[in-house]
């Protein structure tokens, strides 16, 4: 189930979730960066938890709830994160941003009522690389979005 919609897919047995999302289902918001779990560009949420979709085999995910950046239309929390990124000018080339937004979304979901400090946020973003290196504004925007929630 991707973003609330069930998709029957025929794919190769060891295709990664990232490959299936992009090449079979057309969810191009989820990016390919390194393909081996190091950059975070391919981050999606699986049952609310952040995951590298390049490190999961698609056929093992058939009974899971997968959320990609395209779920923003129905998710006001993602929209708030995106607004803060725009306000802070936290987007340069934009390639890493869907992954970072989904990681922050996952953190908000996981934290429930707990306060998200800058230290917690930075720890959570350890797995997301921004090649344009706009980390200061990314952290500022993400923190504002977390505090808002």
């Amino acid at each position: 189930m991707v973003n609330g919609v069930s998709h029957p897919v025929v794919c190769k047995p060891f295709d990664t979730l990232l490959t299936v999302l992009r090449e079979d289902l057309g969810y191009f918001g989820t990016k390919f960066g390194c393909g081996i779990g190091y950059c975070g560009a391919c981050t999606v949420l699986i049952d609310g938890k952040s995951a590298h979709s390049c490190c999961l085999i698609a056929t093992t995910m058939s009974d899971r709830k997968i959320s990609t950046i395209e779920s923003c239309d129905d998710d006001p929390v993602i929209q708030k994160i995106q607004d803060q990124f725009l306000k802070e000018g936290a987007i340069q080339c934009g390639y890493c941003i869907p992954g970072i937004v989904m990681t922050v979304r996952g953190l908000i979901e996981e934290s429930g009522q707990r306060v998200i400090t800058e230290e917690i946020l930075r720890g959570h973003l350890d797995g997301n690389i921004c090649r344009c290196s706009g980390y200061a504004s990314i952290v500022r925007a993400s923190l504002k979005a977390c505090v808002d929630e």
Partner: protein
Amino acid sequence: MKQSKVLNPKTLAEVLSLFEQCGDGARVIAGGQSLVPMISLGLSEPDFLINLSSCDDLFVIKKTRKTINIGAMASVSEILNSSQVINLLPILNFAAKKVATPHVRNFGTLVGNVCHADPSSDLIPALLCLDAQIDLVSKDGKRSVLLSEFITGPYSTTIRGGEVAVSVTCQLDKQSKLASYKKVARRAGDLGIATCAVSLDSHKDCIESAKISVGGYLRKAIRVLDIEKNIVGLPAHEICTFIDGVEKIESIENSILPDGSLTNNYLSATFSRLIRSTLKDALSGK
């Protein structure tokens, strides 16, 4: 054309019978956080993946009177959230915090981490301090092996064909009062260049027992027995001076895995400094 397939057994009995049917080309997949990148890079080419994520029994973290038993599908995040691990095995909790990034921790399992046997694993040094053992099952029966014997070198273990690891068992009486875990890595979330777990007991400023394990750019994670035995009996405040005075830590020198980018001298010095500061943190309760 090569046939490949993902199989989704629901019970351990089904896992074992699939191993029999599939033969040598079968590989267990737990969280997939090491195996999937290896397949993507062409470093592993299994015919069949036996996926453990539908085996509900393997997700459990169980406490008995003397042990904590961590099931094969318990993720690193679940270990971090386990009050039993936090309270009873703090050294494992400290090490789990340093594993990779939240994305990897959400799916990567402790048992998968041990089976992968990366010398830079954060969890293995902590488990060595706890004298942990891995519990293996095959159609021929069960066996449990100390991690120090299970892991034989970089990415190699004594696991046999048709065998599946069902859990890692930690003895509660091996947990000392003072513990610390530290690592040196290029950036947060990376596998360590050097990692160190320390578990100590002291009485009236005197070290009563000590366990020190290291991992990183070594053939495999090891206990530093030559330092351990020499610090027992020392006053706690003399430990750092003692380490500074050790010219070469033989056990580490014999295990260093040469790396093109870092010299052996750099690695030796890094391990010495890391052991010193991890001991210091353990003594100060950090």
